[in-house]
């Protein structure tokens, strides 16, 4: 293959080579407007409805890993070197329906049909990865696909039946994908560095460039806010940022690691964190969104930051000058302002290994169980020695303009037995710690009430919560 700067990928089995007029073109725009594959729909242009879901395969450790992604907030350039499968690409050569399509037809899984291609592709990703198809797994797989007609029952039923059909032969695209080399670098509107050194040079030359990891937040700046971004630097082609290291010192997470890559590892170490992470965005969002990105944007309602703050997590901020390590809690200065110097970028997140008997709780409170931005996220970490609370960390999201520790509440409880009086004092202190947000997600009053309720929960022996996948009825 010619080494040029075109964006090259496999689309439903065909190699495609594109140099778009607008290097910031989304994959959805390309698929619908240029490839004329109109099965993939736009429902919201913000990665919330899943109508644009398609499956992207990428070579990882010598094999192709398939993931469901939202095409509306994915840059075309991000899929350079990948295999893209749309709803039009599932039928066999003889026109036979794929099992997920067949099952959806037989179980009456479509009504208006507009969301259907997205559901087909979410189920297809599940099928392709041969993931368990019990109800719970399917609900997690489908939480990023909204359907307004069916009530989801027939779609879940189709998912439960899909392995019962003859398994189609899927073409092996590995060899052909391996022939795609080079980078999708365009003109100065889009860079795709492959090393940190290149990244550092670019940042010096283009200090205002937007760093683009998963694009699940920044994607909206283009798709909805219609911004003109002068330069985008893609981070997805830099192997040095794409690592997980779990060693004696703790857990090191590279900046471009996606939620989906670490969710199991985190859940294993800290079940409560796993539960929250599982509810961040949707499968599609977790397949694209990165923990580094969630922190970098400094959102007051990002779910990772409060949890990581209570674990004394640190950020490694890199630049041409080297690495600067800071406590994550010091990164957030005020709304929209972070301790990130010109030329710096997040290299990795480090979660020090906690004490063996640490107690960690985190709860995400939102209007809807799945795929909703938190009204409040409360995170609590402490040790209990001879009944007394030590090394207490309390942090909240949604309670201030930045994710922050509740220092006064911590003081009220540190060293106490977390008796009713101390907890009541800590609750009083919370009022002084925070001025909660007041918006369409929740009132300031509710946020305050819930912050107190979570604080209470955190010191119960076996705190219960409805907000868990593990919930079993009867």
């Amino acid at each position, binding site marked *: 293959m010619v080494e040029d700067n075109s964006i090259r990928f496999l689309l439903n089995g065909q190699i495609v080579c594109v140099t778009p007029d607008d290097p910031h073109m989304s994959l959805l725009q390309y698929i619908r407007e240029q490839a004329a*594959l*109109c*099965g993939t*729909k*736009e*429902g*919201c*242009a*913000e990665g919330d*409805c899943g109508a644009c879901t398609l499956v992207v395969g990428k070579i990882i450790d010598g094999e192709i890993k398939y993931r469901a992604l939202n095409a509306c907030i994915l840059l075309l350039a991000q899929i350079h070197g990948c295999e893209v499968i749309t*709803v*039009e690409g599932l039928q066999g050569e003889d026109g036979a*329906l794929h099992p997920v399509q067949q099952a*959806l*037809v037989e179980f*009456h*899984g*479509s009504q*208006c*049909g*507009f*969301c*259907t*291609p997205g559901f087909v592709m979410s189920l297809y990703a599940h099928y392709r990865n041969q993931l368990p198809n019990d109800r719970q797994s*399917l*609900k997690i797989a*489908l*939480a990023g696909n*909204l*359907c*307004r007609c*069916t*009530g989801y*029952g*027939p*779609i*879940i039923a189709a998912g439960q039946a899909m392995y019962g059909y003859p398994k189609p032969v899927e073409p092996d695209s590995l060899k052909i994908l391996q022939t795609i080399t080079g980078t999708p670098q365009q003109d100065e509107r889009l860079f795709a560095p492959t090393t940190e050194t290149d990244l550092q040079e670019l940042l010096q030359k283009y200090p205002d460039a937007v760093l683009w990891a998963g694009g699940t937040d920044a994607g909206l700046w283009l798709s*909805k806010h*219609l911004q003109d971004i002068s330069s985008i630097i893609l981070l997805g082609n830099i192997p040095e940022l794409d690592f997980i290291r779990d060693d004696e010192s703790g857990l090191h997470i590279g900046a471009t690691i996606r939620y989906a890559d670490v969710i199991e590892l985190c859940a294993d170490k800290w079940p409560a964190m796993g539960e929250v992470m599982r509810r961040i965005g949707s499968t599609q969002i977790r397949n694209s969104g990165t923990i580094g990105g969630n922190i970098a944007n400094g959102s007051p309602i990002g779910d990772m930051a409060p949890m990581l703050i209570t674990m004394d997590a640190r950020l490694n901020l890199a630049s041409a000058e080297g690495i600067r390590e800071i406590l994550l809690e010091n990164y957030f200065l005020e709304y929209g302002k972070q301790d990130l110097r010109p030329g710096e970028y997040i290299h990795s997140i480090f979660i020090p290994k906690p004490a063996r008997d640490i107690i960690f709780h985190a709860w995400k*409170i*939102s*209007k*809807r*169980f*799945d*795929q*909703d*931005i938190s*009204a409040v996220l409360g995170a609590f970490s402490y040790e209990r020695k001879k009944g007394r609370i030590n090394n207490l960390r309390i942090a909240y999201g949604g309670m201030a303009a930045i994710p922050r520790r509740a220092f006064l509440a911590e003081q009220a409880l540190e060293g106490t037995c977390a008796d009713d009086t101390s907890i009541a004092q800590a609750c009083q202190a919370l009022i002084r710690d925070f001025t909660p947000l007041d918006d*369409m*997600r*929740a*009132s300031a009053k*509710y946020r305050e009430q*819930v912050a107190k*309720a979570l604080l*209470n929960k955190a010191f119960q022996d076996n705190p219960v919560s*409805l*907000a868990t996948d593990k919930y079993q*009825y009867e």
Partner: protein
Amino acid sequence: MSESVKNVGQPMEHDSALAHVTGQALYVDDLAEPADMLHLAFGRSTQAHAKILSMDLSKVRDFPGVTAVFCAKDITGKNDVSPMAGDDPLFAEDTVIYHGQALFVVAASSQRIARKAARLASITYQELPAILDIAAARHANSRLEDTQIMSAGNAREAILSASHIVSGCLNTGAQDHFYLEGQIAVAIPGEAQRIKVISSTQHPSEVQAGIAHVLARASNKITVEVRRMGGGFGGKETQALLIAAAAALVADKTGRAAKLRLDRDDDMAMTGKRHGFEMSYRAAVDEQGKILGIEMDLASDCGCSTDLSPAINDRAMFHADNAYFLPNITIRSERFRTNKVSATAFRGFGGPQGMMLIERVMDHIASEMKLDPLTVRQRNFYSKDNNITPYGQQVHDFEIPELVEELVKTSDYKTRRQQISKWNQGQQLKKRGISLTPVKFGISFTTTFLNQAGALLHVYRDGSVALNHGGTEMGQGLFIKVAQIVADVFGLPVTAIENSPTTTDKVPNTSATAASSGSDLNGMAAYIAANTIRDRLEELIISKHNCTKDQIVFADGHICFPGGKMTFAELAELAYLSRISLSSTGFYATPDIFYDRKTHKGKPFLYYACGAAVSEVEIDIATGESRVLRVDILHSTGKPLNPAIDLGQIEGGFIQGMGWLTSEEICFDDKGKLTTHAPSTYKIPTAADRPDYFNTALFNSKYEEPKTIGSSKAVGEPPFMLAISVHSALRAAIADARQHKDFTPLNAPATPQNILSELLAK
């Protein structure tokens, strides 16, 4: 002769199922675009109520890629896209009346350019006082029409003489339709001032008439077509015209095809929603919990214009009785005009709000009299002797008492209620609740003249059948149901019937596909058309084979008669050669309904569709979070035309209703700007919100509805209201947590915040 295979009654898949799952089903945005097509975007007001002092659009016009900009003064005809009242301008003229109102439309070479340019207008406003809620509207006496009163007996007297009185209030929130396909239209100019518009609309005839008015042109110059919508739910009944009219205006002015697709934010800000209601009641009750008399006050936020609000609010009154005999009743219904986007039709059309109120009254009575709420409900059901509604219609063949009895058994309601009560005693932090609520929903447009439909049927020489009718397909399965009906008339497999797009030049003057009436009306019209052709074919056979009509059988693709048999295709060819017309229209008007809006009396409904649901929920009393654990539904669709489609409507309607009552919250800021304008902030249910235990069954009714097609019953809207059981169950859980003191209202939606506030209410 073997029994023929019937299509009607079979659980057939949606006619587009295959196209849906393969991505081949074409929606308006998927159609191939003419090379020079213009892409449009609206410029929107940023004030809820203001005088426009100046509007400078030069930056919009000068933006590279922009072809033209049009506003109110460019309209040749009438600047109005309202369904009847004349108070919905296409573009604001000198005053804006809601935040997000269309001011102008930009036409450009791409959608992105049009949308970017639309944001560049400089407009100066003089802010006027904005009315943003019912209280402010009442204070300002800002009303759409006079307060309507529906009454029977003497409620006041019953209340004055009663020993037990319950009274309280209840608010229900607005709801966005959130059809997955946003509003869209493409207008294509033709010769001689003709325009063809492809619109995602439930009401092509209204879009046609509306465009004709805007362009000052005769209706025969305008053709509106829709093959399918990506969801409608009432949101594309009157609202589609705004979009289609703007596209048609641009096509007419520029001579180029024009497409307007609202992005999700524009769609949510600019198009109407379900009416928010504030309601109260005062009921006199006997020892048994029976309602002796009741006064109900219903106030709704209709938004900035009339739209369909009078009929919607009427339907709230019609359903304020739900399944209960209320001999002495006065319903006062106030309809307020505010500076918000005009509220519009949404599945249930006011019915859900009225029903929510009476179901709350039932819960309140049960709480007050220490009775099982189910017992209170059952004692108040309509019965053989007590069967007159507040509007004077007789309730006959009433399915609910038996249906509920069966559901109580199949859902194990009584045992579970006891178990829950016991379980709750052992829980500090969680509580459960269970509730059974019924639905009785009146079927027919209450505006009587709308109850008409037409169909156009062609049989071709090869025996293939092309079916067209005035109903639109929005996912509800109308097309397959009507095709099943037609196939049975000819004894053909349903695959022999081709559904063609709904088009105003095939069937004129249609009513909206709404009020759950799609298959009742269009099914009957198509049935009549098919029988007209069948009659002609039978005459032909009789003339050639000397037999009688009842000796001819159409079955399994063949026609059998004494001494002969031929395929349907052979018969079609024979008819053609014999110069027999193989095309027919069909027309149907619902018989025997009438309504006098002045007195609010009459027989507005052909029949009632009934069902009931039991829901069990759990709440976290520290945070107010809730989950629905189990749902059991028993619902009657008479003799279903297609049980698979009906089950889909029932479950889908239920989940949509559950969303309305739990997680879907519409919020405006204090300037009247919608703050829940996208799925990131507006939360419809996801797959995880559907409980694993979800049992839905069709009720095997002993009554046969004689006047409907195949004795079937409508199914579009009624199941939406089954979700009231979720809200009532949440109320039960809260009451348990509050140890049954002070009955609290639990406004809808029951978000975690609202639930917690009930739990903590003094």
